[in-house]
């Protein structure tokens, strides 16, 4: 148990959490919300782990304490009441976050099509411009990525911006992402798709609005107009 803590502390000291693909270094609201949930769960999980370990150790060193508390009561509180309360809180928080992160409502978000094919990602922007393995995003704005696959199942994942969603042949899935500020973020294929799975990576470049318009071959004002009428997709 001490070793767990030591490794964990050591990891933190080395500022182990950052990296171009790290979900723990969020750059968008979805990833940040999930990151917060993770840190809460980590702290709560560690506390629960220590508590269970402490009770187990007590059973050996101070069994009289536990005996006085009573076996049935121990099972009732440790096995039922406490976990139920913790779980109820956790599930409620996760549902609330899920409504915010998972649910894509019809609104003004920009739509970009992402088509996966063994073993590359093809992005298509509102004006018809296409890029391969490079996704341009406008920073500070919701973007709906419309995922499809031409062959097998792939997984679209930009860890620093949000969770992942599968690109499944015959289905269309939409994931909403937002990059808070301009920058370059890594993306990977998360679902095993054959021998080219590991190198099937892409990068995401988030730009200021004008730079984004330039990058996807749109006049700056048109890019702004799309945001207003919400007609992004083709």
């Amino acid at each position, binding site marked *: 148990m001490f070793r767990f803590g030591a490794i964990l502390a050591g990891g933190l000291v080395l500022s182990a959490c950052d990296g171009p693909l790290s979900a723990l270094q969020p750059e968008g609201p979805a990833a940040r919300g999930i990151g917060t949930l993770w840190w809460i769960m980590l702290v709560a999980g560690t506390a629960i782990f220590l508590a269970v370990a402490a009770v187990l150790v007590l059973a050996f060193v101070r069994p009289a304490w536990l005996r006085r508390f009573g076996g049935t009561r121990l099972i009732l509180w440790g096995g039922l009441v406490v976990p139920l309360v913790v779980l109820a809180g956790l*599930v409620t928080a996760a549902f609330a976050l899920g409504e915010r992160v998972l649910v894509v409502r019809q609104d003004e978000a920009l739509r970009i099509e992402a088509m996966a094919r063994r073993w590359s990602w093809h992005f298509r922007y509102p004006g018809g411009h296409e890029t391969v393995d490079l996704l341009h995003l406008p920073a500070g704005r919701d973007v709906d990525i419309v995922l499809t696959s031409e062959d097998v199942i792939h997984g679209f994942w930009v860890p620093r911006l949000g969770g992942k969603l599968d690109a499944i042949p015959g289905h269309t899935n939409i994931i909403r992402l937002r990059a808070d500020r301009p920058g370059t973020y890594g993306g990977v294929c998360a679902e095993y798709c054959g021998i080219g799975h590991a190198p099937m990576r892409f990068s995401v470049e988030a730009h200021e609005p004008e730079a984004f318009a330039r990058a996807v071959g749109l006049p700056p004002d048109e890019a702004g107009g799309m945001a207003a009428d919400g007609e992004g997709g083709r």
Partner: protein
Amino acid sequence: MRPRSLLLLGAGFTVWAVAFVALYAMLSVGCRFGWHEVALDMAGGLSLQRLQLIAIFLVHLAAGAAVVVVLRLWKDRGFLYPLAYFAAIAALGASVFSFAGVFFLSTCQ
């Protein structure tokens, strides 16, 4: 005691399982036919989708509660009956916990 009393051990959770299948199936059917876009005025603007899911949930909750009530009457009959009774209570709790989302979560998104 008859072999049948063994089946009572699973009575409560069978109701839970049936509720699970019914809710998951009808949720998919409702989304397929766009019931989430049918708002019902008489039900205070609830969608048809949510209304039918709540109905399924409540029916199964009632069934689960009925199982608990019946088993409570029998719980002094011997070894298996109290087990069945406690399992049914656990199942009723599990139903509330697993399916309470029908009241407030997005149904088809």
